[in-house]
Structure formats: C-alpha cells, structure tokens
C-alpha cells in the first residue's frame, strides 16, 4: 500500500461532545501522531459540510486512512463509509472512535479525565489504522427461485405471493393434498366462514399458477449450499399411482374394498386404501397406502388397476429423488396438537366420549364421519350436555408451559357448533381465562355467552370419570359463583395444547435454525423480525414459529414472502465484510476452525497433497470464532486481524504520549 496517510476528524456533535471536552485540543494532539497528515475538529461531522470536509481532504491530501472520532459507529459508520466510497477509497479504511457514548455521555462529571480518555482512544485508533487494509465484498448471483416447505394456509399464502412477484416456487407437502389444518376445520372464527370454502380457491390458485410446482406426498431430505444458492434434495414418496397419467376421476377410490382409519378425521372415520385426503384435494391424485392395500398385505385384489381407465396404477413404484436449486427457503410446516393421552386424568383415549377440539371439527364438518352431526362416539346419540375444557395441557409446567393462543376462540366457535347441531343442548365452557384478543373476537364471545343454556364456568376440572352409561362425570370449582359444581356431560371436548410437529426436528437441523424452549423455530427477533431466522435466506411462515390463528398466520406468511422477495430481488448476495480469511501458507488443516463454526462455513479440503481450510464466503457471518480458535494464526478475520487488535490494545496499555 505504500505510505500510510491518515486524516483525523474530531466531531463536537454540538454540545454533546464539545460541551464536555475540547475537540480542537484533541485534534491538535492527533495531528502529532504517527502518519497523521491532517487533523481537524468540526461542529457536526455527519452534516453535509462536515462530510464534504472529509471528501475534499481525501483528495487534496491523498489520504488513505480516515478516522472519525464522534458518536457510536451504529449511528454513522455507514454515513462516513459513504464519504470514503464517494472519494474513491475502500470504505473499510475508515475507523470510528466513540467519544460520545463512551466518553462525554458517561464522564460528564470529570471533563479533564474525559478529554484524556478521548485522546487515548484516538491514539489507539491511529495505531490500529496503520494496519487497516482494503476489504473486498464477494458478490454471488442468487437463484431466483424459492422453496416453500409445507402446504397449509401459511405455505399457500407465501407461495402465491412469491409466484405473483415472478419467482419460481416449489411447494413441498408431506401429505397427499395441500390445505393443512385449515382444510380439517368446519368453520373459522369469528366470522363462521366455511373453512374449505375460503381455502380451496387459494388451493386452486396454487395449482394453476404457472410459477408454482407442487410436490405433494413428498418431503425434504437434505439441504446444502448457502443463501441464494441452496441445493435441496426432495424425496417423492411412492404413491403407486402414476400422477402424470392420472386424471383424478376417483373411480379407483370408489371401488377399493379395503378400509383404513382416516387421518383427516383424526382417527374417527374411515377411508379406503387408495384415497384422496378429502374431496377437494389439490393435487387431485390418489395415493395407495401399502399398510392397508389388499395387494400389499395379502397379495389379492388390484381392483383399482383393473378399473383405471388410463392405466395409471403402478404397484412397482419406488422412492424418487429430485434436486432443487433455490435462492430462498420458507419454512411453513405448521403445528400439531399435544397428545391428549398424556393428560391422563382426563381419560382421553380411555373414555370414548372425550374428544379433542379438532375431532369436534370433524364431527361438525359435512365431509366428516357423521356427515356433520355432532354425536356421542359411544352410541351415536345426540348429546344433551357438552362440556368444553380449555387449556387442556397448556399453561402447565407438567405438560406445555405456554398458551395455545387460539383455544379460547376455538372453544367459543365450538359452542356455536354444538348449539347449531343440537339446539336444546346445554353447553358448559370450563375456562381459566378467556383470551378473545383478535378483531371481532370479543363480539363473537358476547354473542355466544348471551345464548340460552350456554354456561361459562371459571374453573378447571381435575379428574374426569366415566359413569355407567358412558357419560362423563367430574367436579369443577366455579370461581364466579364460588360453588363446587358436579357436572355430567355426554361429550367432553378438550381444547388441547399446541406443539411443533413431531418430525420437524430433523428438518430443523438440516436448515440449521435454532428452536425456542417450546421447540418452535426461533425467529431473528421476537418483536421486529418474527419471520426471519439467523440463517440467511431462510424465512418462517405461520405456526412453525409459534401458535397462531389464521389471520396472524396469513400476515406472517405474507411478511416472510415479502422478505424473501426482497432478498431475491437484489439479484445477488454479498459476503460479510468481516469475513474469515485463511492464510493458506500457514494453515495446517487441523480443522479446529471448522469444528467451532456455527454456520458450517468452513470445509477442510485436500489440495496439492495438503489439507487446507476453505471458507464459504456466503455462509460465513463474520462471528470470529474460527479466528479466535486457530492455533497458528492462519485464520484471520477482516477488520479484526490479530495485528490490528494487538496494536490497538498495546497503544491503550502503553498510554498516549
């Protein structure tokens, strides 16, 4: 680089700095320091004239290092880096010294000492500046496509927004059809819209969109690469139906003689061995379940094959794998209900007439096992008394610590289902707190609590027992009336706690995103960045980040899509300026750096008969762990090299002269 020529600028920042110390004395002190060519003080360095001052000095005095002693770099580092850029200098030849937050704002009471400290900090900066060097930002093109994992309402919304922005979207869904939990609901609160009626048009939009490719009955098995250039391996599970030939006529599903429990009905109804998840399935292509298919289990039948008008049945299908190359990934894998058999005192799984809220949705749905009639499971009769128990497993140190968020609104909706199906029924809602926070929720709550024969009881039952006739009996203390009530209910509905999907852990590790104490995906910032993660290019949509109702899910998914669109539209990804850099001559390939890198950014490669550490410039986030670990000093971090840091520290230790 040749001769080092430093310009030092001391800002008054009005009275913030100038009111405590004397900046011109500091500037005078700085002017005598090694390689300092010019040193000035000015009222407001960040102002236009202030910036012009620096720019002109750079040109006039051929400066190749600039030090600005002012406020925190978090305020104006980019501002002054802009000045350097404009004057034709690499922006990382700038160094900022914080003499406001670190000096004048905290040492107002001892101005003499404050000025000494300011001088020492400027001296240290000058000694460090001798060793600053130009930093290059690597830019790599992004692949303008996105992967959306999960085809529920969150994935659907995100996919549509991405596709409408001109981005190619791959939507991977593990079930036969997209639609997720929302497809299983009968109605949605608080408007009581028919859930599938508002969902299926969106599902069709996804199917028809030229920019979206759906991979249903598939799962992600491997993720590699880096932001802007992910390589994703997807396993297409065998459906035993050639979906390219199949027309979705459904004849096969009508004729199949085998029966299986219907997962879509939460175990309440049955389906065939060859089936669609539900009639409005998208894609409308069936799947054969080898666990129940008579051909797979007993070697007989194959009726579907004989009947299929286009010969789409293929019993020899195997797993297929495809590789997708995408720039961004949106995780929309949703939630599951906490296993109610764990709440053993409530008898779920033991007593037939204790069901979950989701099972009630299935009973209420016209497509469900009872064609929309709400009945007792033990004898198919209409219930006279229904008890809805809130917080089943939630807010409980022994089960799930947090609130499920939508249980209260769901319970109010379920009151409506029961009264709608069995108008004479008595409904008891057993709650601890009613959380009706959303738009229209309080009005919905008012409407339902005003209904005849609907009783909101403030208490939580402890044990539920079965009476001789299959109905449920339990005691519950009602804080409102101060009475211990004994309730006999024909049907008990548990609004269960909400947890992340059981099988999501392996996906989470593939993507290298952290989880919160509940197991949900950890967001970058809970208030300001709830749909981003610490992994660049990977975004979160919907309940995988935490339990949500549908409006919040859709807003969250749209935000994730917008962030992904922003990320992809830049066209390229930049490396961090604080990149880890390997001096290949010194590197012995010991691999300690790779073992501590939290971003898997370092690979030890064989090259010319040696093992050398290689840094992936996009994966590296500039955390510095590798540089600190490297025993030989081969790994250094841009802007924080050993030499730079040591010279700064030595200057401080030695004291200003």
């Amino acid at each position, binding site marked *: 680089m040749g001769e080092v020529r430093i310009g030092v600028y001391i800002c008054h920042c009005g009275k913030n700095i100038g009111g405590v110390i004397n900046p011109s004395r500091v500037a005078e002190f700085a002017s005598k320091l090694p390689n300092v060519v010019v040193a000035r003080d000015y009222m407001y360095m960040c102002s236009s004239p202030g910036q012009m001052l620096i720019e002109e000095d750079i040109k006039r005095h051929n400066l190749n290092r600039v030090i600005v002693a002012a406020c925190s770099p978090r305020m104006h580092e980019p501002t002054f880096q802009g000045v350097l850029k404009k004057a034709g200098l690499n922006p990382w030849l700038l160094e900022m010294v914080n003499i406001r937050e670190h000096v004048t704002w905290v040492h107002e009471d001892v101005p003499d000492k404050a000025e000494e400290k300011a001088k020492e900090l400027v001296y240290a900066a000058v000694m460090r500046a001798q060793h600053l060097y130009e930093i290059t930002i690597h830019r790599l093109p992004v692949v303008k496509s996105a992967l959306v994992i999960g085809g529920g309402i969150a994935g659907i919304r995100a996919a549509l927004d991405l596709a409408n922005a001109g981005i190619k979207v791959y939507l991977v869904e593990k079930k036969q059809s997209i639609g997720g939990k929302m497809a299983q609901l009968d109605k949605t609160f608080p408007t009581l819209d028919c859930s599938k009626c508002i969902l299926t048009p969106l599902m069709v939009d996804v199917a028809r969109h030229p920019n979206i490719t759906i991979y249903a009955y598939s799962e992600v098995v491997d993720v590699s690469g880096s932001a802007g250039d992910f390589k994703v391996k997807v396993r297409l599970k065998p459906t035993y139906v050639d979906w390219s030939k199949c027309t979705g006529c459904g004849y096969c599903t009508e004729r199949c003689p085998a029966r299986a429990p219907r997962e879509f009905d939460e175990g309440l109804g049955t389906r065939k061995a060859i089936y669609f998840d539900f009639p409005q399935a998208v894609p409308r292509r069936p799947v054969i379940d080898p666990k129940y298919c008579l051909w797979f289990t007993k070697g007989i039948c194959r009726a579907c094959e004989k009947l299929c008008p286009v010969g789409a049945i293929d019993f020899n299908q195997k797993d297929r794998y495809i590789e997708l190359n995408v720039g961004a990934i949106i995780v929309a894998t949703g939630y599951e209900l906490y296993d109610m058999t764990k709440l053993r005192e409530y008898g779920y799984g033991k007593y037939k007439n204790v069901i979950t809220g989701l099972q009630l949705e299935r009973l209420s749905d016209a497509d469900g096992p009872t064609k929309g009639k709400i009945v007792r499971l033990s004898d198919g009769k209409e219930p006279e008394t229904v008890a809805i128990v809130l917080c089943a497993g939630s807010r409980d140190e022994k089960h799930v610590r947090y609130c499920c968020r939508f249980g209260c609104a769901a319970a109010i909706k379920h009151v409506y289902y029961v009264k709608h199906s069995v108008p004479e029924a008595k409904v008891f809602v057993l709650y*601890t707190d009613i959380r009706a926070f959303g738009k229209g929720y309080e009005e919905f709550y008012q409407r339902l609590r005003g209904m005849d024969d609907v009783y909101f009881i403030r208490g939580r039952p402890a044990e539920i027992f079965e009476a001789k006739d299959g109905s449920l009996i339990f005691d519950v*203390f009602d804080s409102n009336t101060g009475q*211990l009530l004994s309730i006999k209910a024909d049907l008990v509905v548990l609004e269960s706690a909400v947890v992340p999907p059981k099988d999501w852990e392996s996906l989470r590790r593939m993507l290298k995103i952290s989880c919160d104490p509940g197991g949900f995906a950890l967001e970058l910032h809970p208030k300001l960045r709830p749909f981003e993660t610490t992994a660049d290019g990977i975004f979160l949509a919907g309940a995988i980040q935490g339990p949500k109702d549908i409006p919040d899910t859709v807003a969250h998914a749209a935000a994730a899509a917008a962030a992904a669109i922003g990320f992809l539209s830049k066209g390229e990804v930049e490396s961090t300026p604080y990149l880890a850099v390997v001096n290949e001559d010194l590197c012995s390939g010991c691999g300690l750096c790779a073992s501590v890198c939290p971003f898997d950014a370092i690979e030890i490669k064989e090259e010319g008969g040696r093992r050398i550490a290689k840094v992936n410039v996009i994966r590296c986030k500039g955390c510095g762990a590798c540089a600190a670990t490297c025993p030989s000093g081969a790994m250094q971090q841009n802007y924080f090299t050993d030499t730079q840091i040591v010279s700064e520290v030595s200057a401080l230790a030695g004291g200003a002269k």
Partner: protein
Amino acid sequence: MLVSLEAKLINRKYLDSVKELVKPHTPQYCYQCAKCTSACTASKVIPEYKPHLIVALTRMGLIKQLLDSGIIWACTECWKCGEYCPQNVAPVEVIIALKNLAVASGYRPPEDLIAMARNVIELGRISPPIEVLSKEFEIYSRESLNLPPLVRPYAHESMRKTLKDLLGGL
C-alpha cells in the same frame, strides 16, 4: 369465610416463610385455575374448604382469619391438588407449611393430633396397643391374638429428646 380487604393487612412475611418451607414448589405462580379445588377431597364435604382460596390468601398474607378458623386442619393430604396443579404450587404443601407455622405461632392443632404426637414422644408410636371389639362383642388384644409383644423403639431416650425439640412445647 369473610376476609377483610384492607390493603394494609397485606403483608409478605407469611408468604416468604411459606415459600421457603415449600421449596421447590412455587406458590407465587398460582393463577387461580381452581383445578386443585375441583379435585379436593375435603372440599366435597366442606364447602368452605377451598385450596385455591387458601393459596390466594396466603399470597397476600391475609391469613390470620384463615389460621383462626382452623380450617387448614381439614386437609386430608390426599395429594390430588399437588398432583394436578399446573404451576407446581402444590396447595397441599402450602397447607402443611401453614400447619407448621400455626403451631410455631402458638395455635393449637386438633386434640387428637396432639395426643398422637405425645404418644410418639413417650411410646415411640401414635398409640399404645389397645383392645378391640369384634362384631360379636368379643374383646381382643395383642396377647390374646398371640402376637409378639411390642418393644420401645431403638434408642428411645435419645429419640424422645430430639422429638421434644422438634415438636416444640407439645
């Protein structure tokens, strides 16, 4: 159970002692779901007995009337409340702590309990062997049933001394 609601009666002293005695349980986290009272054996026969209310009163230090009423001795220690409580409050532990505090503050536990404690100190067991009556009104004793005679517990003298210290002036 009418309790005065004057704010100046609220004091933390009792809650702090109870919190110390019931560690690692956490009465301060109770959110009054009343699952305990829904399960409680005693509340089914004594309507005024409500474990969630006892915890709520203890949290506010409004327990003089509570101890005066002596209702804490109604607890059967069936442990259902502790088993089902979602916040590890375990009302039964709070009540046992209140029982201990009451005795230490000079309240008298039920007479039968005092008698049991005195017997344990003197004899090593809650009662001396007694004669029982069968349905046919025959009298039986340990001897007449050919059961081996009872002896004092090991090192009874030193045990008596230690117990006297622990059980206070009973």
